[in-house]
């Protein structure tokens, strides 16, 4: 499993397609392709943790792409804080489990793991 992170509009999907062999992806949902794009849109869904766990077991060579969203002021609304916290924690857990982690910045990838 490979985790790709970075801010929005940084070219993460293009990077995954040109450098990591991604050809098909599911956008914002856990699907049945070998890539989840915009994982941050799915983290608050029901049974997210167990579904993601199952997905990774079924797709050991998957690429998971998630926006980095924590570099701002703590949001006022509780739901936004929970989403931000959850997304960050999910990325930390995925990074531990991943074979490789990339951060994409201005379309350039840096391997963090």
């Amino acid at each position, binding site marked *: 499993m490979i985790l790709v992170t*970075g*801010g*929005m*509009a*940084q*070219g993460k999907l*293009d990077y995954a397609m040109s450098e990591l062999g991604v050809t098909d992806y599911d956008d914002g949902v856990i699907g049945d392709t070998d890539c989840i794009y915009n994982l*941050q849109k799915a983290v608050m869904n029901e049974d997210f943790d167990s579904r993601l766990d199952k997905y990774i077991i079924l797709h050991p060579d998957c690429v998971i792409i998630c*926006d*980095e*969203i*924590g*570099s*701002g*002021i703590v*949001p006022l609304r509780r739901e*936004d804080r929970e*989403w*931000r916290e959850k*997304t960050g924690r999910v990325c930390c857990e995925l990074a531990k489990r991943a074979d490789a982690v990339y951060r994409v*910045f*201005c*379309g*350039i990838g*840096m391997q963090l793991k």
Partner: protein
Amino acid sequence: MSRLILISGAGASGKSEYAEKLAVDMHEDRLIYVATMSAYDDESRKKIDIHKKRRINTDFETIEKPYDIEEIIPYIVPYDSNKRSTLLIECISNLLANEMYGRAETDGMTGICNNSKLKALPSQRIIDGIKAVADTRLADIVVVTNEVFADGIEYDSSTMEYIRQLGRINCELAAMADSVVEVMCGRPVIWKGQ
């Protein structure tokens, strides 16, 4: 071949000082600061003054160009034709805001252009403009841009469009650039080149 160096970083990360020092160290001929901020209120005037003060006692000349960046070309010719000028363009985030919201041809709310002369997207006009400047080989170019992509906030649609276009410019300029540097706490993280 002239060099293109892209410098990015968060607000108050020290990217301007880093870029200024780099441009000063690089220059062999004219050293030109291309200022993109238009002074429209007290806060911007204050910011401009701080940056101006930092350039006192340096060799910087200043060109003010809030949009249509390619129009600087006639003003950047080096004194010695065997050498190149060094440009510091600061910064892309201002340039894009001016292209989108600050000119008569565009809708000040949405940034959308309704003038046929400006058919290309604001981001494309800036990418093409900087490429045109680089293609003259009159100058080495240090470009400062901004990191605004990772706060997870869903702003109004016009602002989201601004962020997407800024991201696109950064990706395209990074692809063209010889070096890409992210500055954090004044320290450089090298993403490309050296």
